[in-house]
């Protein structure tokens, strides 16, 4: 009976879709809503749910430390983003222009930090750049007769940007190199025949053709950098000075889960998160419009 079969079919399809939907709603959507709700309470070490309206937001705006967090977030995001895109591009260009084996090897190695467990990566980077005499770079410097440099202490932003950048640039590298590789060879050959230098080819042909991918990487990584703090937590933990590298999301984490002695200020912490969520949502909608209009939201093939 066609009618019955139709319902069976719908049931089966629904069943296939339901687990994913439940999971997303339970572990992503509900927590997001919960975050916003908590920010309207003064949930703290007493674990009492008490509505206080926008009081936390008022505190956020008037607190003297807030501009520091915002400034740090901006520095971190723009700095790492620039590194990611430029280095990613550079790696993609170099690896696609050398012999294929070397290029593949290059890309494989540069993708590795992303796959490596974060604690190991943070551990080794902290040792390399350690300000103490026993750090790797300082050992080399002393061996060459120089004096040790307080890397993570003095150059903390470059350090952080390098640590996060080594992980982040592989994203752009992979996307750009695949895009470059799919550029029809005819364009390049024609340009070469016309006598164009390699550099000109890069500037005039390759870059314009991967504009979309570059824009996408910028958009995507801005979002993810706004909310990324794991590597900062594992290395400098907001230091070295008075909130020197404390970005907004890290401060939220510290307020909730403890920095030194003070912790469990959940209500106030979720203010930071809510603001980031709102920014993230707005940006996503913007990206949606810009990138997805001509995207594979194409209606599917059945029914």
């Amino acid at each position, binding site marked *: 009976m066609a009618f019955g079969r139709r319902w069976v079919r719908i049931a089966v399809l629904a069943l296939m879709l339901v687990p994913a939907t439940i999971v997303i709603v339970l572990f992503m959507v509900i927590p997001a809503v919960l975050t916003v709700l908590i920010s309207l309470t003064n949930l703290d070490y007493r674990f009492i749910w008490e509505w206080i309206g926008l009081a936390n937001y008022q505190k956020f705006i008037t607190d003297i430390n807030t501009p520091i967090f915002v400034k740090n977030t901006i520095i971190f995001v723009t700095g790492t983003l620039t590194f990611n895109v430029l280095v990613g591009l550079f790696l993609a260009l170099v690896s696609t222009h050398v012999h294929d084996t070397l290029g593949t090897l290059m890309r494989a190695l540069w993708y590795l930090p992303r796959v490596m467990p974060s604690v190991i990566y943070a551990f080794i980077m902290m040792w390399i750049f350690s300000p103490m005499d026993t750090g790797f770079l300082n050992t080399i410097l002393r061996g060459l007769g120089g004096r040790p440099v307080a890397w993570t202490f003095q150059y903390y932003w470059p350090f952080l940007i390098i640590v996060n950048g080594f992980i982040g640039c592989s994203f752009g590298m992979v996307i750009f190199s695949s895009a470059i590789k799919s550029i029809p060879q005819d364009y390049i050959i024609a340009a070469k025949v016309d006598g164009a230098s390699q550099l000109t080819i890069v500037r005039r042909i390759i870059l314009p053709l991967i504009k979309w991918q570059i824009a996408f990487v910028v958009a995507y990584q801005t979002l993810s950098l706004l909310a990324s703090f794991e590597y900062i937590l594992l290395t400098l933990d907001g230091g070295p000075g*008075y909130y020197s590298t404390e970005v907004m999301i890290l401060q939220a984490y510290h307020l909730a889960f403890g920095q*030194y002695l003070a*912790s469990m200020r959940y209500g106030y912490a979720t203010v930071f998160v809510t603001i980031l969520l709102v920014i993230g949502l707005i940006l996503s909608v913007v990206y949606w419009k810009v990138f997805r209009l001509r995207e594979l939201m194409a209606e599917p093939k059945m029914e």
Partner: protein
Amino acid sequence: MQAKTQKSIALLLIVVLVLGFAVGYLVHWATAPQPSAPTGEVVPKSEYDKLNQELQTLKNQLQQLQQQQGGKPVEIVITAWTQGPERESIYRQLNLVEAANRLNTIFKVVGVPATVKVEGDFSTASWTDYRNKVFLALQGGTGPCIFQMEHHYSALLSENGWIIPLDDYVKKYWNWTYYDIISGLWDSVTYKGHIWGIPQDTEARPIFYNKLLLKQLGWTDDQINSLPDKIKSGQFTLQDLLRVAEEAVQKGVVQPGYAIWHRPSAGPDWPIVYLAFGGTLQDPTTGKLVADMKAWKKTFDWFYEASMQKGKAISDKITSLDFNRDIHPTIVSGKVLFWMGGIWHKGQWIGSFNLSEDRFWQMFGFALYPAGEPGLKPVTLSQPQAYFVSKSCKYPEIAFLIITLATDPYLNSLHAVKSAHLAILYDQLSDPVYTKDKFLAATGYMVQYAKYQPLHPKWSDYNTIIFNVIKGIETGQFNSDQALQVFRQNLQNTLGDSVIIRD
């Protein structure tokens, strides 16, 4: 009655009596506890009776439980979480385990049908991580029966209803060990009129000075050895210390920034300089936290003068260093002139950092924090650790008994000597293990000058602000006036009316 009947009755009576005695003796012989080799002291009968009486309710409870379980002896597991983080303090956990063994022996003697076991981790994680773990568990009702935490958390823990007041138990078992606790310690665990924790150890936070470096600076042995006394009498002040530190840097005896070192992280030590300048932390009538801005200004001035911006005594990098990776190895290698530390650091240096006992006495002297300026008194701070019993514990009295048995002069001395903490019981001061330790004997006097941190649920926030601001001074972000301003604003924003700011 006829004589024959009388004789028969008399004979019968005698036989019954003899039989009765025989049976009585047999019964007594069969049920008497087997005399075994005494495992420790033999308990005199009066003590035994008292024990019996004290444990009567507990015994009844457990006997009931045993019946419900079908006659098997009750097996009780008491969860206990303790924290170092230094591994030398592992006796905090081990003593509880041993206490359970002792409790089992007592139970057997008195006939309580239960065996007790202590389970749980000794944590070497950071204090923040440990505390988060405990708070979380307590809040969710899955907390351990016994846990150790800094004494001043009595405030927060009791405000949240996570722990039980121990007054009644302390009274009940007073004669077991509590009569012997050094009296000042009770203040550290009393909040709003109740006792919330049992002191586990205490310490003092002295300033260690490097004798070899002082010699290089030109000090005579006499001057070096009389330093602690000069500090005690108020002759040598913090300003004098700063001058010596700066001189050491100028003369090249130490590298710039290596004259005065302190902990790189937040912790109890931060208010000490403020206390040395005469500041107070808590208002006794309202219980609110207090900030004497005049004293804070002097404190921040002192740190500013000591920082790399001025006198170059304290390194600007120190707050980025790691205790175990950077600080202890450097001090042990003799590169630092003054170390604002804790007495247990000696335990760590010898236990984990390859410093020999002899070398320690050769290299280091130790004293109270000098008075801030002439006319004030030298100070130090003690932060006793305490054992708490959580509200969700199913057998609070047993948990309390375990803590009581662990609070024993011998067991506590094992902990004190290994980890270099101070005695909590008067009897310890004559315990052979404890008295053998030269260091503990030499630092014992400091407890008389020691202050405690205030018991207030928001004390940790206050303390973190102190640390953050001083960090800002040292890393060159603030001068002393800016620091004062930031400090005031942070206090107001975070603490609101919990703090009284006195200008």
